[in-house]
């Protein structure tokens, strides 16, 4: 089970309180996790990555295991600790803008 931590506004939008838990089929990557997230919570479509290009929105960052994964390729495997559910995949609103 993959754990995903969302920023406050996206938790409100998705009507969830804490972390989201997702079943991800196949390789666990940014793309497969976000695909599973949007399938389970379609109101988040477009809020994390562009509807068409599927690129990360400019003020969104992805962190996990104390690493910034924002600029990793979307199909790169996520850390084993995320795959095993020991660590969450963090979707973070960039600090820019306060």
């Amino acid at each position: 089970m993959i754990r995903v931590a969302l920023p406050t506004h996206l938790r409100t939008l998705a009507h969830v309180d804490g972390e989201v838990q997702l079943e991800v089929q196949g390789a666990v990557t940014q793309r497969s996790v976000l695909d599973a997230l949007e399938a389970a919570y379609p109101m988040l479509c477009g809020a994390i990555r562009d509807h068409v290009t599927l690129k990360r929105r400019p003020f969104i960052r992805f962190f996990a295991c104390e690493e910034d994964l924002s600029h990793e390729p979307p199909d790169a495997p996520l850390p084993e600790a995320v795959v095993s559910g020991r660590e969450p995949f963090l979707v973070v609103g960039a600090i820019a803008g306060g």
Partner: protein
Amino acid sequence: MSKVRVLAGTRKGAFILTSDGKRQNWEVSGPHFAGWELYHLKGSPADPNRLYASQTSGWFGQIIQRSDDGGKTWFQPGTPPGEPMTTPEGFPKGESNKFVYDTSTETGKPLTTHQFYDGTQHPWEFKRVWHLEPSPTDPDTVYAGVEDAAIFRSKDGGKTWQELPGLRGHGTGPQWQPGAGGMCLHTIILDPSNPGRIVIAISAAGAFRSDDGGQTWKPINRGLKSRYIPNPEAEVGHCVHHIAMNPARPNVLFMQKHWDVMRSDDAGESWQEVSGNLPTDFGFAIDVHAHEPETVFVVPIKSDAEHYPLDGKLRVYRSRTGGNEWEELSNGLPERNCYVNVLRDAMAVDSLDACGIYFGTTGGQVYASADGGDYWSAIVHDLPPVLSVEVQTLP
């Protein structure tokens, strides 16, 4: 007894202010969508309980919200509360946030660039919905004016959106450029007596009109003069801030341009300046009295460099002669140390017998006058900066 419902969009959420027809005691509900920018909310004239809201964020993008009970509850169209959020096939139903420019060869001549601040060409990039305009006859049809400038339409209650590409594709798009607030389509006027006619305005491109329901468009800027563009009388490039119309007289339009208050008596074919004795003719908001089509309201702002009222005194100016002759309205408005702005979509009128006028400020006040502008009082003092104000007159 009649009621009024004021819909205020702010930098940190939406607020709904309701009163009976006396408009003296107000109930405030909100913030709805706390923490998000609410650029605009508007009710359907065909079903007053149907409200649309543009919820937006620089971080998380565009969300469209809808209420079918007058603002008590909200949902994203396509995902009503309690319903599964995916289709039986498992596909997401959250299409309502999706504004994708039409790039097909079948439906228009899609443009790829417009003029940027520095004069170079820049690709169109969707940022947010500035204005939602529900159809006067069909609660499920609603138009959206967006940044970067384009017009979209939904015919299914806001669930899915399609661009009307004839506007961007009509030919002048590469000359459009962003105003200080971005390249936004901020004004949409639907002519209730002529279903094919739509008037829109873009900063900074100008005004445009369609007479065939949005398929084809033409610029309607003859008579506008703007010193901040190379050719002051160019066909496009003017920073139109807002346009207002009295539905009973749809061919008469009033415009607050960047500088200059303008009037057209021929649905925008030509414009004449009616700034007259205004102390400054810079401003954003403009509206027309519900029952007196020659009575117009503006809020003069000092200049484009100083977006606040002259001398720290907040004033509405009223013309009862369709422009040129303006009277200062100050009763109940701040007399000193007032340095707020009133944004383009932040003024509205109700249609009660004694027409009510409303406007919101960037200081978080919503002012109301229940007597056509003679006396003003603040319904609320301390909201976040107000981006938009709309009013519904309810039975």
